[in-house]
């Protein structure tokens, strides 16, 4: 019987854990909103619409010293290597899940893949990802410790990047995600924390967040940043 998406995700995480790689990874993207359930317990939080893409951020690739062939590691559950974009970013594909690796972009912007020879793959370098790994939380799922960006960082990051998206649908999805996470943070009583994170951001990023907040036209969210 075909594995369902959640079981397959757990299987992938377990394989990364047993290979000693999970500790270097921050789970980002729409899938981490599923695991925020534990953090937002009691607030009426419901996970967001997620795609099959599961994004793994490696904040400090040079820290990984173990040699692991990721493609071989995920071959048994049926993942195949796929290439995306004109530059050939590697991702591991399965009808239920698509695994992608990301690294924070440092220095001059480039669309060349970032090589991860110790893992036998490459990763996509993206701007502002270091903001996601600045403050993380750990959730415990099926006996594994999974690192996620703090929801405040997740929401503010979405507000920054939605303005850089060429795709309107993706931008609307980011907007929706940020708004719902911010509401959950307000219900959890973390308004001050969100404001502190915002105040610690560089002025240029604050400007981007403010612009996105104005567009949301949501007084409850706007009040956090007043």
């Amino acid at each position, binding site marked *: 019987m075909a594995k369902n998406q959640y079981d397959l995700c757990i299987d992938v995480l377990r394989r990364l854990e047993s290979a000693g790689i999970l500790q270097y990874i921050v789970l980002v993207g729409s899938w981490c909103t599923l695991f925020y359930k534990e953090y937002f317990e009691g607030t009426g939080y419901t996970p967001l*619409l997620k795609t099959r893409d599961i994004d793994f951020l490696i904040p400090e690739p040079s820290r990984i010293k173990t040699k692991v062939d990721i493609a071989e590691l995920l071959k048994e559950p049926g993942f195949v290597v796929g290439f995306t974009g004109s530059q050939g970013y590697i991702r591991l594909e399965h009808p239920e899940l698509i695994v992608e690796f990301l690294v924070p972009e440092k220095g001059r912007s480039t669309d060349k893949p970032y090589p991860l020879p110790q893992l036998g793959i490459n990763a996509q370098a993206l701007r502002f990802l270091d903001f996601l790994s600045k403050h993380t939380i750990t959730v415990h799922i099926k006996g594994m410790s999974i690192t996620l960006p703090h929801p405040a960082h997740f929401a503010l990051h979405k507000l920054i990047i939605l303005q850089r998206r060429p795709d309107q649908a993706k931008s609307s999805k980011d907007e929706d995600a940020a708004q719902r996470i911010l509401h959950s943070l307000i219900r959890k009583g973390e308004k001050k924390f969100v404001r502190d994170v915002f105040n610690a951001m560089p002025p240029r990023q604050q400007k981007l967040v403010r612009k996105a907040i104005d567009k949301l036209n949501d007084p409850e969210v706007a009040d956090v940043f007043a």
Partner: protein
Amino acid sequence: MKVLKGVLKEELANSLGMQKNYERELAKLPQGSLVKKTIKGRNYYYLVSRIGGKVVFAYKGKVSDEEVREYKKAKEYRAKYRKLLSETKKQIKFLRSTLRGKEPV
């Protein structure tokens, strides 16, 4: 609605790429299946495959344990990839019909 349609379009593009990748991996696997025949107490290996609708047994002679394992693994992966390819094709069909609605995709 715009968000949902965008997600479905992205998933369709993903599935189309995935279909090609499963077909590529299937093509890479060695053709046929290794079968063992015991004749007068001795083991002989044949490679069974279908060529032009006919089942063909090709004598392989002595085969190392490693080669036997490789064929066994290839057989397992072939079955797995075929199943996943079929799932991918079903997804493509579903996504196309969902996206189409009354508009051209």
